Every structure is written in C-alpha cells, then in structure tokens.
C-alpha cells in the first residue's frame, strides 16, 4: 500500500471516530435543542397574544403566495378553543436576508410585527424593526397594498431593506387574509 493511501486511511479513521462522537452528542442534544427553540418561539408568540392558551402549528395549511418569500412557521393562537389570531414567521431578501414575525387578528388586521433576525447593515437595514418604519404596519388591513411609495414610506438610506420588508409583510398579509377568510392556500 502506498504511503499516501496509508495516510488517507489514517485520516479517514480519525474523521470516522469524530463523526461517531458527534452523532452521539447530536442525538443526545437534538430533542433538548428543539424544546428550547419551541419555548423561545412560544415566548415570542405570547408577546403578541398574551391571552392565548394554545398555539397550533398550521404551517401545512398556509403557504407563501410569493416564491421569493419562505414561511418558516405559521401558528394559530387560540383561547378556550376559539381562534384569536394568526402568527406568520417569514424569511425573504431584504438588503441581505431578514426574518419577520407578524401577527394578525381574526378581523383581518396586522397587529404588528417584530424583526426576528437580519443580516442587513446595522444601523440602516436593522431600522426596519423599529419605529417609525414598523409603526406603519400597526393595525394595517391585510387587503392593503404594502407598497413603497404608496401606503409605505421607506427608511432613508435603506430603501432596499424597506422594500424587502414590505414584500415579506405583503406575502404574510395575503396568506393571513386567505386563511382568515377560509380560503387557505
């Protein structure tokens, strides 16, 4: 066997041993990580609907109307079995990528949204999550345009981030409107 082959086998042996160890730790921690993520998500959901006693995953029943926007999760908020709101976490292109969590009331209004995460420029693109840009979406009807230059004003110096955020929220609003009116995609 050539020396190169021997070295390749030795390196592979170390790699396989490392993979086995990692697989063991992954299997041990994966359920705990999933529980921690669920707790974090539910804590975020409770901020929108503090009266809710249950959040049901309806991601399978609600799809994004825009192929550029992905819905990470869609949850239905309930209190005593009654529908009290819808939460949509959607990811799409802004200047880089942003994830927005928006809440909708049963009467077809966007209550508000939060910026879950973004890789946009700090101090510019990150402004999409704060006042005054975010205030434009409070109590907005899901039937509205959500267009820059129309019913939405862009952030000065962050037009691309603003447009991206408006696109994400428009997709969320359209999907929420369909779900609330019983015509889920």
């Amino acid at each position: 066997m050539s020396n190169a082959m021997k070295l390749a086998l030795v390196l592979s042996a170390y790699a396989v041993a490392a993979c086995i160890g990692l697989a063991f730790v992954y299997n041990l921690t994966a359920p705990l990580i999933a529980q921690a993520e669920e707790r974090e998500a539910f804590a975020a959901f409770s901020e929108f609907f503090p009266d809710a006693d249950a959040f049901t995953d309806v991601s399978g029943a609600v799809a994004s109307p825009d192929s550029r926007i992905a819905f990470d999760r869609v949850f239905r908020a309930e209190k005593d079995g009654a529908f009290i709101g819808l939460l949509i976490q959607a990811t799409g292109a802004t200047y880089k990528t942003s994830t927005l969590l928006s809440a909708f009331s049963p009467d077809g209004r966007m209550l508000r949204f939060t910026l879950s995460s973004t890789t946009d420029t700090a101090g510019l693109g990150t402004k999409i999550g704060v006042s005054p840009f975010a205030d434009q979406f409070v109590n907005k009807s899901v039937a509205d345009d959500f267009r820059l230059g129309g019913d939405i004003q862009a952030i000065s110096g962050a037009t691309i981030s603003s447009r991206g955020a408006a696109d994400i929220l428009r997709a969320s609003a359209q999907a929420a409107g369909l779900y609330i009116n019983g015509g889920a995609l």
Partner: protein
Amino acid sequence: MKHYAALFANGLFKENPLLVLMIGLCSSLAVTTSVANGIGMGLAMTFVLLMSEVIISLFRKIIPDSIRIPVFIIVIASFTTIVDLCMKAYTPALSKAMGVFIPLIVVNCIIMGRVEAFASKKTVDEVIFDALGMGLGYTWVLTGISLVRELLGAGCILGFRILPEDLSIGFFAQSPGGFFVFGFFIALNVAIKRAFGKKREASATEASAGAATDGKERDE
C-alpha cells in the same frame, strides 16, 4: 507537583495567551461586552482546549507527522461542535448571545498553537495542567475586560444595574472601547511584571551583597 503548578501558573500569568502571547484576540474583543458572555466564552474555550490537548496528547505517537494539522483540526472542530450543541441545548440564551463566536472557537489561535507546540509533544498529565492554565488565563482576562466594558459601557454587571444609565459611556460598548480596555490591561500587566522584576532584582542584589559581607567577615 511543583512542575504541574508551574505549568498551570504559566498559562495564567507568565505566558498568558491574551496579555503576553497576544493570540486569540478576535473573539476576545468581540464578546467582552458583557461579563456573562466573557465568562461563557472563556469556559467554552477552556473545555475545547482541554479536550483537544488531552486527545492529541493521548494519540501523539500514532498521529503521522505529515497529516498532523488536518488531524488537529478534526479534533478541535469536533469538540467545538460538541460545545456548540451542548450550549444550544442547556444554555440557549447564552448560546444566542454568543452567536457565531462559539463555532469560531475552532479557528482560535490559542488552541491550534498549544496543540501544535505542546500537546503533540507532552504527556497527558502535563497537558491537562497546561490546558487548564491557558484556558483559565484566557477566561480571567476576558472576564476582567468584560467587567470594565459592561460597567462603563452599560452601567451594569451581569445585567444588574450598578451605575445610572446617564453615566454610561457608549464608547466602551463599541469595538474601539474594547481595544482601549485591552491595551490598558496589557500595559497594567507589563507594569506589574516590571515592578515584580525590580523587586526580585533588589532581593537578589541584597542576598548576594549579604553573602559577600559574610564571606569578608569570615576571612577577617
């Protein structure tokens, strides 16, 4: 035992990785905006350093020299991933606060440096004390820098408000403030070393002068 104590103390002070060797600086400046992050980063790095050094020391005689670097990287990356997964599972809030700097432990110069320079040549008992010394040396400097930056930059320590918000100096919460505080720590370390060095010199001079006087008296 003295040998082990010397190895341990070497990393804490004499060859402190941050203040003396000045390696592994990137993450140390990035995460020291709060004490919790500083301590978390330090302990995570210590664990990866300890486990990597032990494994590599254990297998040092059967790691071929020509592929030692890829093997070191496999070992270090594996333990970094283990730390990342464990933090996400057991301390999710701290993991989120640390963000990308936990996975970046794999490229921390301190670990690769000690593994290459020390663990690949020494026995397991020696590397344990070296890793603990280096890791805790890294941790205490990180904690010290974080303490200053969080107190002056946010008026808090571990989230508890100490100073009124109006007295916070935003400069210390930003990157330039991190460099400033780090530079101050280096200067303090050099000053303390010089002071101890002068004291030792003075004691040595006194001792040798005393011995010379005794010798003269005996001759007389």
